[in-house]
């Protein structure tokens, strides 16, 4: 089932959490709402679920307006950031809850509930913990119970709020691969909120980058990473070096860099900034071809698959570059040495008027 968000606005007092957001989540996709804290991503998720009412705009499931449908009847599965498991119930009863509270007519008989819950617990690989209390489980296990509980009511959409937020790094990695596989199996329209760009790029079919209650960009992971629509998306998704300056007459003058910029042929100068990712820089000792800058190597971390160089330009502004092992072996740069750095890819954003 697809989800459509139309012009949704939500204010809390004077603070605008969600500002006229429109978004379509195609059926069967796994979409990430990505943004820093306070960007409105969780508010948007809660509005889709029906846990918050928007001040303006509409949420549609399969073209049907959900405004008058209470959260109870929306058939959404919601996984809370801190799981919100019922602490006084066993794992089994947690998962069975959604079925047990159904009105008498539509409530499945006990045997059926039992079979269904055990199936779900097998799906999340926790059937052996059915009789435990949530307090006796690890974080990753709790997360999976929360997921099984959400799936028990056969939701039409699955919404997850920072699903891996409170887990440690290793379990987080495991669980997100697992969630991706699970999604590939059940193909349930899913939206998850995260502030971790790596997580969003790794798991999602489509990433929605949010900032200040607005959507900055929507796209496939490689699309938003390689072709960011705004400086915010560029800087939020991974590391980048920034060169501030101006564009004028078809050229960009960004600090120590001077490159062609046909995007602004006018004689009038406009403030602009160029962004490059660390791995997109060529580091050498000669100005072959130009278009780069001279910088001093301040620090070098040679451990790992890529070698990280911390550099400083002529005015002392520092930025990072990365080279792979082979390049490092041939270059053999030493701290304090002056190197020529040429951005292979420079994304220039002219400041809007």
């Amino acid at each position, binding site marked *: 089932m697809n989800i459509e968000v139309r012009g949704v606005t939500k204010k809390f007092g004077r603070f605008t959490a969600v500002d006229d957001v429109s978004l379509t989540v195609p059926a069967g996709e796994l979409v990430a709402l990505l943004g820093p804290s306070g960007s409105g991503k969780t508010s948007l998720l809660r509005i889709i679920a029906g846990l918050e009412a928007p001040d303006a705009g509409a949420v549609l499931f399969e073209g049907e307006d959900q405004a008058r449908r209470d959260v*109870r009847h929306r058939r*959404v599965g919601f996984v*809370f950031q801190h799981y919100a*498991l*019922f602490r006084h119930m066993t794992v089994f009863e947690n998962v069975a809850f959604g079925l047990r509270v159904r009105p008498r007519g539509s409530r499945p008989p006990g045997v059926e509930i039992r079979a269904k819950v055990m199936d779900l617990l097998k799906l999340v690989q926790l059937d052996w913990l059915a009789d435990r209390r949530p*307090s006796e*489980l690890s974080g990753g296990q709790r997360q999976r119970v929360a997921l099984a509980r959400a799936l028990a009511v056969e939701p039409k959409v699955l919404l997850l709020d920072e699903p891996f937020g409170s887990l440690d790094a290793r379990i987080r990695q495991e669980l997100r691969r697992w969630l991706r596989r699970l999604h590939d199996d059940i193909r349930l329209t899913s939206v998850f909120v995260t502030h971790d760009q790596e997580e969003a790029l790794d798991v999602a079919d489509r990433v929605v980058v949010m900032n200040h209650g607005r959507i900055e960009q929507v796209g496939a992971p490689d699309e938003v990473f390689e072709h960011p629509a705004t400086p915010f998306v560029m800087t939020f998704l991974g590391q980048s070096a920034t060169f501030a300056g101006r564009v004028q007459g078809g050229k960009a003058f960004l600090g120590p860099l001077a490159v062609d910029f046909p995007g602004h042929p006018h004689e009038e100068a406009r403030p602009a900034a160029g962004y490059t990712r660390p791995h997109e820089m060529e580091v050498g000792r000669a100005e072959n071809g130009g278009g780069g800058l001279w910088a001093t190597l301040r620090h070098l971390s040679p451990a790992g698959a890529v070698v990280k160089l911390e550099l400083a330009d002529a005015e002392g502004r520092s930025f990072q570059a990365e080279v792979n092992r082979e390049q490092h072996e041939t270059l053999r740069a030493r701290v304090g040495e002056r190197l020529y750095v040429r951005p292979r890819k420079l994304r220039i954003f002219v400041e809007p008027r």
Partner: protein
Amino acid sequence: MRRALTEPPLVRGALLAVALVFLAIFLVMPLVAVFAQALEKGFGAYLTALREPDAWAAIRLTLLTAAITVPLNLVFGLAASWAIAKFEFPGKGTLLTLIDLPFAVSPVISGMIFVLLFGRQGLLGPFLGAHDVKVIFAFPGIVLATVFVTFPFVARELIPVMQALGNEEEEAARVLGAGGWQIFFRVTLPNVKWGVLYGVILCNARAMGEFGAVSVVSGHIRGLTNTIPLHVEILYNEYNFQAAFAVASLLAFLALVTLVVKSLIEWRARSVASREEHVREAA
């Protein structure tokens, strides 16, 4: 939490002795004295004093008052703590202060308030008189005063518990399709049940033991409007010490039961907490 002791043994011993002597003089001795006096003339006389019609009437009245007061305050306490913990609304601070009012006012004043309101010369006196309803110097007055004096207990106990629990479990239940009552009985209540029980026990102990407020509104009519504490006072004033202490021993016994149940609840809460901690450490 165990900390390494640094004080010399002498200081430790002195502190301990002071505490123990204090405890013995102000808590243990009176308690023992109550039971000793009550049983002074033997167990037979003890039972006779309790079986005496006026004493029996006082016991029944006290039980009945508690039986009405405690459920009322339970409902009020649940409603108030739910509202305060789960919603934001204007006047929340005022409500919190008002809940504490009975703790802040002397019980005698509480009783006076009801005399001023419902007494013959009171605000509602003419109206009540015209409809032949007797509140002051009658059973309803006793219940009103007791409800007033004891209403903070359950609410005060539950507000911090509910605030600590937050809203998430209720929200989860709602998303899973549960209705309001289902959420309350299946999620909220089980989570706060120990707090509820604790509040109820304290509320009950106070409801049965309240003297000041009830004394003002009851009128001390023997066999009719005397609760246990009032009856004890009357017997005492009549120099009937053995009977007075026999009846008083019931209240002392109630206090002991309250303490035992309270420690059981606390012990249970602690053991649950420490078990959870163990599991977390293991995981």
